[in-house]
């Protein structure tokens, strides 16, 4: 072992920042991180699993054994490259990762080339993007590899210049020594390389020395995004991978019985192939337009689906039957309410899509995948190929919100390509993405708060949900770690639920249970998973209890929160948002709190429910109550990129507004009615708050917590609370407009709408 570190080993601060890593044998400098310390496992014994190990501890523990395979490469052109074993889907992790490396290496951010790694089965669990875990898990190993690279560059420069190590400094990507012209790191890339793999001890920079981490930076892919050069899966030019779409059943997961006119459709202009697959009938053509024509022309006889005949009310009845008993009502006063959360779509703007080229005993796949290892294994199994014969490239994703944890399009593309023996560029139509794509499951949340005088004695929440499919790798990860986590042999989803949910208030005896039923739907975890519904229900009950006790909602929360960090974010929004200011009748404030991923968030909104706001008319739109102002405070321990964190909070707010007010799927007779963005009412410009303030709290813990999903729950809850206060009625069904169908449903046969031809009449 060599010890290239300058400062001597020390206890305390240095000890915490001292790590082992590698220099790998290579022709240009390649360093890797090895993590040899376990995360601290301190914590108080408590009946709440989240108090001593939350979901992010779990994921980081899982990441430990293989993290040394993360490598930083210094190239001869002076750039530094790193293949991130995660999916970038808009959350900004390529930028924050570049910042970590730039910080430790002292190279400018624009020298960094962060790409997305292909599926690497040897990484085991360390290639799952989820649970807002990326920065938590990679914060140390990436910096260790970068810090070793910096030391090697300094040593190489000292040797090259014939000066002492203490005389060289690396700044801005250039090594300098007194009396010498600077050496760019590109010139040192080969000289700093090692002919053998060595273990190296390194001390990371102290936080007081950070000049990149914690500063607001623009995204590294901003230029690519605004010039149209950012390349998504469907923008790739893979030879002969022609447009492909699937004619899908009229009901959820219906099956193909027979196709009456395959030959006729195959003869349509541009069409090259028509083939039946597990999920429908695939067509391949010269253009997607001709795929649409072909899909619409197909005459298919369909078998029943997995939710045949069911409508919203049937599922509500099922959930009611599955609800676990609340126990006997106590003798003390209670608030006891049941909330209904309808199905919601986690469809991104980029629909499910993938390119596949399967031939000659091998397969190559391109898709935005947050669990590429599981995708690779499942695709190999489906094709009957060894896992090593399947190459899976992770492309930039056009949003995820939970969608890209699954690989539905990649599996289909592989199946079609194998069946027809040609490469395919397979894309779901928007209508398919909405109707057959994965959903956030419908759920009931029953809450019972027991209180006496001005104390809450107990808080129980029984959450009953249509089953959430976690079959994307998280389940496997939990199984492998089951012995090391304190939740016994609970089901995957129950484990996830218990690990992600907290009770931030000092509310006496508190417990939460999850029960799931009905596996007939295509579900998945949607951004912030269980928390938006759980927190929305909880915060509405907190408001109700406060009102029974004649307490102010903010002061009541403030007095009940268990931590200073929690109170600080709540105080921030209350102060910045002028909590309690006088507002006209029909306009009200709402305030809510949520903690998760070792982070804290609070949101204050003002909601205008007056007729002039609700009655605004915009064609094919739900205007509804308007959030006129929103104030968000987030404490993520240490924000690597505060500007990126603000962006995530803004997105979380837009999600929360939609979840509370406008966006849901309506289930009728075994299918969802929504087939368009003018059916599924995600937040649009006319729903956004004209006044938005976001506060990133100064570093608290000094370690980054999760950020990408953090703000959804409190945003949804704050809007719901504001609605209750503005209208005088606590809402119990979400979104609040679910009872009104605000659009004319499109037909289910053919399954996708034809593109209009009148575009020239709308040029403006």
């Amino acid at each position: 072992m060599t010890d290239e570190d300058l400062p001597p080993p020390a206890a305390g601060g240095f000890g915490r920042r001292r790590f082992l890593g590698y220099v790998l044998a290579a022709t240009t400098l390649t360093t890797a991180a090895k993590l040899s310390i376990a995360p601290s496992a301190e914590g108080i014994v408590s009946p709440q699993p989240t108090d001593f190990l939350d979901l992010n501890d779990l994921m980081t523990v899982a990441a430990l054994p293989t993290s040394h395979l993360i490598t930083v490469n210094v190239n001869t052109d002076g750039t530094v490259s790193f293949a991130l074993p995660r999916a970038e889907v808009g959350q900004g992790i390529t930028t924050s990762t570049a910042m970590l490396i730039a910080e430790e290496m002292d190279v400018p951010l624009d020298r960094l080339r962060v790409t997305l790694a292909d599926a690497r089965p040897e990484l085991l669990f360390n290639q799952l993007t989820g649970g807002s875990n990326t920065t938590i898990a990679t914060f140390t190993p990436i910096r260790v590899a970068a810090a070793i690279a910096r030391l090697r560059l300094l040593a190489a420069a000292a040797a090259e210049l014939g000066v002492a190590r203490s005389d060289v400094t690396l700044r801005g990507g250039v090594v300098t020594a007194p009396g010498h012209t600077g050496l760019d790191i590109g010139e040192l890339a080969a000289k700093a390389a090692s002919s053998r793999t060595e273990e190296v001890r390194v001390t990371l920079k102290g936080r007081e020395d950070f000049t990149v981490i914690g500063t607001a930076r623009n995204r590294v892919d901003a230029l690519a995004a605004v010039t149209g050069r950012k390349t998504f899966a469907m923008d790739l030019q893979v030879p002969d991978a022609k447009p492909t779409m699937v004619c899908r059943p009229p009901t959820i997961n219906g099956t193909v019985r027979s196709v009456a006119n395959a030959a006729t459709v195959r003869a349509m202009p541009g069409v090259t192939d028509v083939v039946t697959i597990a999920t429908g009938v695939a067509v391949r053509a010269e253009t997607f337009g001709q795929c649409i024509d072909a899909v619409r022309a197909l005459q298919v006889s369909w078998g029943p689906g997995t939710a045949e005949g069911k409508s919203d009310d049937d599922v509500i009845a099922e959930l009611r039957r599955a609800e676990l008993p609340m126990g006997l009502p106590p003798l003390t006063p209670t608030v006891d309410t049941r909330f209904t959360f309808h199905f919601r779509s986690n469809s991104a703007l980029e629909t499910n899509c993938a390119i596949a080229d399967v031939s000659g005993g091998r397969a190559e796949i391109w898709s935005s995948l947050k669990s590429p290892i599981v995708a690779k294994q499942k695709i190999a199994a489906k094709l009957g190929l060894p896992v090593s014969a399947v190459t899976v490239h992770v492309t930039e994703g056009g949003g995820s919100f939970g969608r890209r944890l699954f690989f539905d399009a990649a599996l289909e593309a592989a199946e079609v390509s194998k069946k027809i023996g040609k490469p395919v560029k397979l894309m779901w139509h928007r209508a398919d993405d909405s109707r057959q794509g994965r959903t956030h499951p419908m759920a009931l949340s029953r809450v019972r708060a027991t209180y006496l005088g001005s104390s809450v004695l107990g808080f129980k929440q029984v959450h009953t949900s249509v089953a959430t499919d976690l079959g994307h790798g998280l389940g496997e990860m939990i199984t492998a770690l089951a012995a090391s986590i304190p939740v016994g042999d609970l089901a995957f989803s129950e484990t996830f639920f218990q690990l992600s949910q907290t009770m931030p208030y000092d509310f006496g005896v508190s417990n939460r249970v999850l029960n799931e039923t009905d596996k007939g739907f295509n579900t998945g975890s949607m951004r912030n998973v269980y928390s938006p519904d759980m927190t929305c229900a909880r915060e509405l009950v907190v408001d109700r209890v406060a009102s029974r006790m004649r307490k102010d909602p903010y002061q009541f929360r403030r007095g009940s929160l268990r931590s200073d960090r929690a109170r600080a974010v709540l105080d921030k929004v209350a102060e910045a948002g002028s909590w309690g200011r006088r507002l006209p009748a029909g306009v009200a404030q709402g305030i809510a709190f949520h903690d998760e991923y070792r982070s804290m968030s609070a949101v204050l909104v003002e909601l205008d429910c007056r007729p002039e706001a609700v009655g605004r008319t915009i064609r094919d739109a739900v205007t509804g109550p308007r959030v006129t102002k929103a104030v968000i405070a987030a404490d993520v321990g240490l924000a690597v990129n505060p500007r990126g964190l603000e962006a995530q909070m803004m997105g979380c707010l837009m999600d929360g507004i939609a979840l509370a007010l406008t966006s849901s799927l309506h289930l009728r007779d075994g299918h969802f009615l929504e087939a368009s963005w003018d059916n599924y009412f995600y937040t649009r410009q006319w729903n956004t708050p004209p006044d938005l303030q976001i506060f990133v709290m100064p570093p608290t813990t000094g370690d980054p917590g999760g950020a990408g999903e953090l703000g959804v729950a409190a945003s949804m809850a704050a809007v719901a609370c504001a609605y209750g206060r503005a209208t005088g009625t606590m809402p119990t069904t979400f979104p609040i407009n679910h009872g009104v169908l605000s659009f004319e449903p499109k037909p289910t046969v053919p399954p996708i709408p034809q593109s209009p031809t009148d575009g020239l009449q709308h040029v403006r």
Partner: protein
Amino acid sequence: MPKHTFRLNGRQVAVDVADDVRLLWVLRDLLGVTGPKYGCGINVCKACTSHLNGKAFNPCAVPVKDIGPTDEVTTIEGLPDTVGRSLHPMQEAWIERDVAQCGYCQPGQIMTAVALVRRVAAEGRSITDEDLDGIRNICRCGTYSRIRDAIRSGAAEM
């Protein structure tokens, strides 16, 4: 197969394709111009927004036969050239405000914004909250607030 010709980002292009194929697919699938994105194919999401003779339009809703030989189609790729710079002021505003998250909607958002500013200027006024409220482009990442800020600052530089 009929031949269609039109001007695309300053060049005359020609394609052999059926009359009714929508322009979005001609651009993306046949000409390899992938800035305009697919988000719905029914003129709702506005991810494909481009310019026809300087005004916003949605190529997913226009059959290629409707585009004439002298019609000028501008996609995000051709936007900087319309001002003879490496970036249009609206693109610079987008970078300055760090608007994009996943970025999928952003070519369409920028093309919508530029056309909006031109239209408002032609009406002899400046951008209002109502104008911004009226933008239909979906951003599923929820970048709406930064879009509003960027349009105002981009408009000031146009």
